[in-house]
């Protein structure tokens, strides 16, 4: 350590001083010895010569002594780096190609990694976020909400959690501040704020006092809502906001914080729900809880399950067989995007591999050309190791230049990526090229530089340098081995390209299938929007039905409207509620095996208006009233499940299943399936009730127009405002738009993977072109001889293209096998076609072979045009 420090100081002090001191010391010793010899009787001249002789090689002694002060390895590295830069300037075209290739590989990976890092890897911005869990209840089939009653038992009785908060996210209507708007309220128990570490920006957050039933009506605004919708009003604290007709006092504004949920304001759940009357009423409450340090999720669930079993003993009922459900908050919030993110990251990694292969291939070619130079350096004393190190350093310098360019590229790519990405990807907007990402970029740059640099260096080691010197630039035996190595690289990159082409082909076909899929209804000229009627103004079911009836009647009479109808949950709204059911007359399912179905309400004439075919029976009529017989229309999926070979009409289903209260319904019709979750979804069982029996305050209105639906939107909005100007129109869109939005993520990942496959193809084409070009050059004499012996240029053309195609064929064969296994990873992203689709694979193989053929065309053409006479005379 001490030695190292002295060296470092000496290194900084500079070498000159040490050098001159040593030289003087050597001089002084020689003079002393000379004097000693003169004293013994030698002549001055003879003494000086003898002293010199005895001393030895003065220069070498000084040099060796000086070397004790230097960081030999480090200085050699610097020298190599300088040499690398010189080599770069000597062949700018070569360097440019290598740097661009690296830049592409590193840039793509850095951009994608920055997204993956932010979306998947970075811990959520909450205290001890890795211990945060989302809790609910579950039975054998699915997970669902926890009841307010059970939540309170869990919170008091558990031994596994530091803290626990319940929440739900109802939509509310804000009135009295300009146009009525829908706001997303997060009803929470006060522990929530501590769990996510939310702090007030102004005023206060909700506390335990607010959790009590009968507490004053207070809300806290989210930062986004306050600064956006309310214009950052500095005097908002203390103001009253009217939500669903009830005034709430704003007690504070929360500091900005990303949450997995879009929240406009926070209100007290305890105040809204009061004391739990029983523990069987399910709403949409989930719990957020922080595990105690060292407690596993499994142990915590066992703890809650024990509470559930105990509760069932003291308070038996429908909650029997419900147990706890828990998942980490991080998993819960990224759920849907994980697979596509990982697939994209993998694809980016493959591109980097191809880039490395291309660069390695180029380097092999260049090192071959540099053979004589290397041989000469070896001959004048550079060791093999020294040469290897120098070549490697040169390559790493190139890689670093490429990496720097790649980071610039990634910066642009990331901005483009955020621009085109669907906003539903969590935390994407926060993605930055931060330190972690830059470290990653440096890491992969170095790795790529070493990987691409090492292969040709290892090949260079085997060059018999002496042969090289003798032969000059003629490359014979050793060249063949290196050519074989480059062939291998091309085969590898073609294989990887095929995997990417196959994957992107699958996604492209899936996207096409999704876009072309029959949604099950007529999407043309269709508008839809939802209305939620505030309970305060529309207290009774009759008032709600009266309003919606009047509205649809009104809309039907509008010019430009062909028809209008209402349903609770039209496609593609997805899951607006599901519940147990059972079939009367069939064996009772065990408690934890009761089937679930989506449920929905539909107007008379809804199916006709939507263009949903009625397969059996009839749809609802105006005469189907709430006080009449209990009836239902079911969808085809449900009908096929129970009555595959007979009519479902007249059969009965029990809503709620055997263990819950509910009406027995007679099936009067079977409607065709619709893609309830969007174009790329598969239908779930669904039960429809007539809207006359609506028990909710919201309905969606569907309007079929005669002309361009978008043009009618202002008139429709005005018509709703004429009936009630305090109703915001939610999700007001044309059907084509909302179906298109549902495919945004699929379109995004398909676009990226296709882009990656395109890049891979480009790189592979460059690789094949470079290889063949070189092959032709090194074989010009052979080609000339063949031509001279009577081969036609067409034959030469066939010969060279065949060489390229043989490599491409080997690559595609390997890639096809690899791709066939790799696409299992894509399975959940594939829609409408089997993941193992031979047609797609054949298409990808065709595309890659065609590409190889094109890339080989120019060098082959050149080969066919070799002038035999000229070439042979050159000797």
């Amino acid at each position, binding site marked *: 350590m001490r030695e190292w420090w002295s060296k470092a100081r000496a290194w900084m002090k500079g070498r000159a001083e040490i050098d001159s001191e040593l030289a003087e010391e050597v001089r002084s010793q020689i003079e*002393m010895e000379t004097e000693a010899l003169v004293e013994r009787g030698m002549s001055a001249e003879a003494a000086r010569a003898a002293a010199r002789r005895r001393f030895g090689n003065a220069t070498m002694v000084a040099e060796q002594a000086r070397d004790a002060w230097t960081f030999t390895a480090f200085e050699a590295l610097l020298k190599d780096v300088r040499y690398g830069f010189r080599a770069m300037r000597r062949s700018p075209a070569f360097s440019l190609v290598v740097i661009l290739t690296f830049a592409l590989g590193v840039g793509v990976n850095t951009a994608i990694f920055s997204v993956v890092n932010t979306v998947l890897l970075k811990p959520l911005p909450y205290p001890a976020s890795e211990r945060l869990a989302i809790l609910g209840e579950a039975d054998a089939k699915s997970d669902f909400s926890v009841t307010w009653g059970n939540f309170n038992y869990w919170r008091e009785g558990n031994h596994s959690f530091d803290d626990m908060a319940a929440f739900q996210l109802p939509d509310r209507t804000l009135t009295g501040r300009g146009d009525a708007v829908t706001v997303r309220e997060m009803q929470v128990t006060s522990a929530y704020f501590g769990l996510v570490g939310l702090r007030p920006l102004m005023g206060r957050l909700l506390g335990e006092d607010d959790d009590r039933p009968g507490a004053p009506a207070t809300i806290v605004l989210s930062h986004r809502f306050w600064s956006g919708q309310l214009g950052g009003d500095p005097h908002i604290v203390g103001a009253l906001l009217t939500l669903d007709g009830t005034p709430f006092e704003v007690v504070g504004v929360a500091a900005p914080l990303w949450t997995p949920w879009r929240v406009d304001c926070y209100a007290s759940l305890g105040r809204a729900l009061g004391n739990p009357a029983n523990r069987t009423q399910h709403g949409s409450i989930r719990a957020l809880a922080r595990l105690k340090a060292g407690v596993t999720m499994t142990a915590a669930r066992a703890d809650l399950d024990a509470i559930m079993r105990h509760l069932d003993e003291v308070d038996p009922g429908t909650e029997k067989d419900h147990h706890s459900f828990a998942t980490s908050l991080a998993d819960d919030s990224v759920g849907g995007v994980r697979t596509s993110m990982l697939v994209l990251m993998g694809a980016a990694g493959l591109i980097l591999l191809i880039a490395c292969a291309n660069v390695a291939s180029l380097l092999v070619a260049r090192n071959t050309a540099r053979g004589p130079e290397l041989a000469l350096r070896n001959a004048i004393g550079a060791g093999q190791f020294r040469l290897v190190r120098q070549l490697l350093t040169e390559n790493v310098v190139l890689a670093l230049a490429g990496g720097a360019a790649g980071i610039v590229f990634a910066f642009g790519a990331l901005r483009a990526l955020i621009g085109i990405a669907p906003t539903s990807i969590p935390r994407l907007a926060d993605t930055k090229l931060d330190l972690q990402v830059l470290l990653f970029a440096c890491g992969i740059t170095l790795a790529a530089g070493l990987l691409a640099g090492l292969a040709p260096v290892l090949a260079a080691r085997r060059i018999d340098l002496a042969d090289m010197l003798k032969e000059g630039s003629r490359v014979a035996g050793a060249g063949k081995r290196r050519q074989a190595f480059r062939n291998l690289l091309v085969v590898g990159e073609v294989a990887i390209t095929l995997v990417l082409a196959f994957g992107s082909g699958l996604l492209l076909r899936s996207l096409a299938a999704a876009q072309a899929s029959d949604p099950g209804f007529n999407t043309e000229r269709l508008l839809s929007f939802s209305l939620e009627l505030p309970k305060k103004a529309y207290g009774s079911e009759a008032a709600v039905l009266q309003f919606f009836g009047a509205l649809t009647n009104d809309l039907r009479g509008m010019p430009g409207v062909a028809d209008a109808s209402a349903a609770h949950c039209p496609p593609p709204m997805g899951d607006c509620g599901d519940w147990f059911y059972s079939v009367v007359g069939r064996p009772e399912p065990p408690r934890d095996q009761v089937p679930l179905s989506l449920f929905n309400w539909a107007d008379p004439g809804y199916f006709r208006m939507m263009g949903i075919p009625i397969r059996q029976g009839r749809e609802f009529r105006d005469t189907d009233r709430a006080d009449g017989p209990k009836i239902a229309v079911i969808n085809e999926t449900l009908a096929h499940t129970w009555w595959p070979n007979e009519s479902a009409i007249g059969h009965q289903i029990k809503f709620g299943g055997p263990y819950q209260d509910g009406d027995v319904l007679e099936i009067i019709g079977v409607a065709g399936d619709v893609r309830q979750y969007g174009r790329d979804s598969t239908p779930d069982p669904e039960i429809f009730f007539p809207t006359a029996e609506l028990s909710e305050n919201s309905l969606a209105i569907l309007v079929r127009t005669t002309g361009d639906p978008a043009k009618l939107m202002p008139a429709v909005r005005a018509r709703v405002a004429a009936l009630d100007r305090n109703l915001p129109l939610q999700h007001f869109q044309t059907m084509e738009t909302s179906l298109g939005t549902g495919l945004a993520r699929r379109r995004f990942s398909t676009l990226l993977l296709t882009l990656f496959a395109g890049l891979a193809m480009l790189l592979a084409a460059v690789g094949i072109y470079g290889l063949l070009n070189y092959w032709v050059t090194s074989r010009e004499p052979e080609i000339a001889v063949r031509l001279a012996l009577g081969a036609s240029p067409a034959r030469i053309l066939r010969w060279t293209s065949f060489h390229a195609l043989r490599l491409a064929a080997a690559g595609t064969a390997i890639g096809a096998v690899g791709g066939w296994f790799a696409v299992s990873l894509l399975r959940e992203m594939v829609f409408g076609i089997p993941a193992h689709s031979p047609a797609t694979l054949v298409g990808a193989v065709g595309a890659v072979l065609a590409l190889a053929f094109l890339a080989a065309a120019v060098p082959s053409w050149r080969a066919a045009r070799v002038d035999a006479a000229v070439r042979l005379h050159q000797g």
Partner: protein
Amino acid sequence: MEFLQGTLEVLILRSLQVGPNHAYGIGQFLEQQSGNEFVVDNGSLYPALQRLLQRKWVVAQWKMSPNGRRARYYRMTPLGRQQLVAEQTKWQRFVEAMSRVLSPEG
């Protein structure tokens, strides 16, 4: 006779025990003391001195020699003295062990 690896440094320290000396003087001292068995090669002596400087076991200073010539004098530091003592003990044991093994029995 060549020096064993790593012994030259100890011998230099030993030579400086009698007082500061320059490189030439150190070489002379070692040759005389060993009964001209050791031949001090400057190619080893100079780097060894540099190493001793780096480890702060000796310090160097330009001074006038008795016959009026400028020479670089090396002086042992307290740290160097500690090192010498430690090395001497080690070598003593090593030499005894060597001769016990090598000398004929009895």
